[in-house]
């Protein structure tokens, strides 16, 4: 089985108040569709991240619902208006009860 999990976030550690910063993230997940077969001719079950939720200082920032059309080991970038210093937290959940989360801190001046 390929690696799974290992969520990562890349974001600037400092920003000016009001600045729009880009947040980039990655997680290992097979994102299988349930439609393709393995070498033995058996269908490979669907196994994929379904939701990603993002909070900043515990307050909801954005979230996404994903289908099996998202590529393996999904990458996702989005933006945030830097208003105050704090912690961004992302949580990924897959259809097999897998839950992973990761945090990144930013100082806003």
């Amino acid at each position, binding site marked *: 089985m390929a690696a799974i999990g290992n969520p990562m976030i*890349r974001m600037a550690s400092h920003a000016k108040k009001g600045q729009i910063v880009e947040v*980039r993230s*990655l997680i290992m997940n097979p994102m299988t569709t349930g439609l393709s077969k393995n070498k033995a001719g058996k269908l490979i079950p669907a196994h994929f991240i379904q939701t990603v939720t993002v909070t900043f200082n515990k307050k909801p920032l954005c979230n996404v619902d994903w289908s099996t059309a998202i590529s393996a*080991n999904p*990458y996702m*970038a989005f933006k945030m208006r830097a208003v105050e210093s704090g912690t961004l937290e992302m949580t990924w959940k897959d259809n097999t009860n897998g839950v992973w989360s990761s945090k990144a801190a930013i100082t806003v001046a």
Partner: protein
Amino acid sequence: MNLSRRDFMAMMGIAGATGFLSPSAIASSWGSGKDPYEIPEYGNVTLLHITDTHAQLLPVWWREPGTNIGTREQKEWGVTPHMVGDKKLEYYGIKAGTPEGYALSCMDFDTLAHKYGKIGGYAHIATLVKRYREQVGKKAILLDGGDAWQGSATSLWTKAEDMVGAQNLLKEDYFVGHWEFTYGADRVEYLLKHKLKAKFLSQNVFTIPWDEPVFDPYDIREVSGRKVAVIGQSFPFTPIANPAYFVPKWSFGIHPGHMQKMVDECRQKHKADIVLVLSHNGADVDKKMASQVNGIDIILGGHTHEIMGPRPVKINNTLIINTSTNGKFLARFDLDVGKGKLNGWRFNYLPIISNMIPEDQEMADYINKVRAPYAKKLAEPLAVTESLLYRRDNFNGTFDQILCDALREEMDCEAAFSPGFRWGYCKLPGETITMEDVMGQTAITYPQVTVTEYTGAELKNVMEQVADNLFNPNPYYIQGGDMIRVGNIQYTMNPGETIDKRITDLRVGGKMVQANKRYKVAGWGAMQKVEGTPVWDIFAKWLRSKKTVSANPRDLPVLTKNMAGNPGIAFPKEYDL
């Protein structure tokens, strides 16, 4: 008819190289007898541009395409670069038979080749570059548009190190890439970091998965007190047109939006007075990019080996050139750069007619040195050609025709495919094809020959997909190769149609192709890792066994009648038009 080189020369009344015009005679045929390479100084910045030399250290023959079709659907009917032969000469008011006529058109190629001689050669290019550097001093910038590392035996066998040495001797300033990447990301990074002195720039190469720039996107340098920005654009379709496994962690693309961002950054943040793009997009893609991105003064283009006439093309406020291939031309821009704007410019394409430019001794010595270990192997004579052999054309070049013939016979297949590459120099009738010449058509890092059993439907799909890379009305789908070369496959082609509808009456060996029937097809240049004998071994073996060869008959398609009168077709009869 079988013909030895000596017979042929006798027939043509040519006594070897002495049959060429003397340099002074060539100069006088240029008009007025003055030195055609004398360019008056102008302005405060001089750009020298070469591109797509395809590792040809020595002079070669290079014929412009006889077919380079642009369609009405593409709005490229008769628009440069889709203009060839007489039509091109007429449009630009160039006299046939002159050195410019020889350099810019395919008309009377073998006659004019005998008259003027080979083109290019790094020792000849070096002479001219040194001369201009002496003339203009620190005003000069030398830019290399890529595809310098691939196309010859010695570049393949030294993994491009011979070319890096030549680039360093030329003192190139900037470089971008395409075939360079087929040596693999590690080799590219090693040579760029440890060997090449020029700066490699690319705004359109990013890491997978994090999407971060792999190379510096641009460089700013001060020339004559003005800030000159050079943005690099490597070949956008590298992992599509060439195997992706060479660069598994890099993604490419055109990225016009990011290009705009880079231009704005150069102008606003760095206060650049002029913005240049050193591009390996290809002519059609450059023209579209110039229509979308504001603020580029000049695009120095390459890739498609399409010299767009003697003058730059202007799209909005951007000047675009495409400086041919194989060292055939050095382009020179003399610019009057003012504060934040280009006040004026002079432009010259300088054909590198090797008989007219003495060798630079330093470069000549270097070339001899790097070739010495391979000289014997390269010189092996294989066969004499009765026909003019060339590759560059929209459909089966004559060199590809004999390559397809060789693949079919050696691999015992009813048909053959060969990639529509645009590099690969010419051989004149009566010349001996050597091992070096075979490598000049085949030297790639994925040369394995394969035999594939295609269904008729798959065969058609392959051809339709490739045709769409050539004739799609959206320039951003034009990858810059020609139509796939075929052996013993006949078809009717309508370039003005859309994908899946361009090819009709598809036949193998004269018989209509059936969708479900399987056909055994030999080919090379696979996109996946495959096992197989290198194509040069198979081609050389076949040539040795033939002794004399000729590219007849050719498997050219029939073109549909809507192509009649297309200025991108020099010899319509070849296509039943």
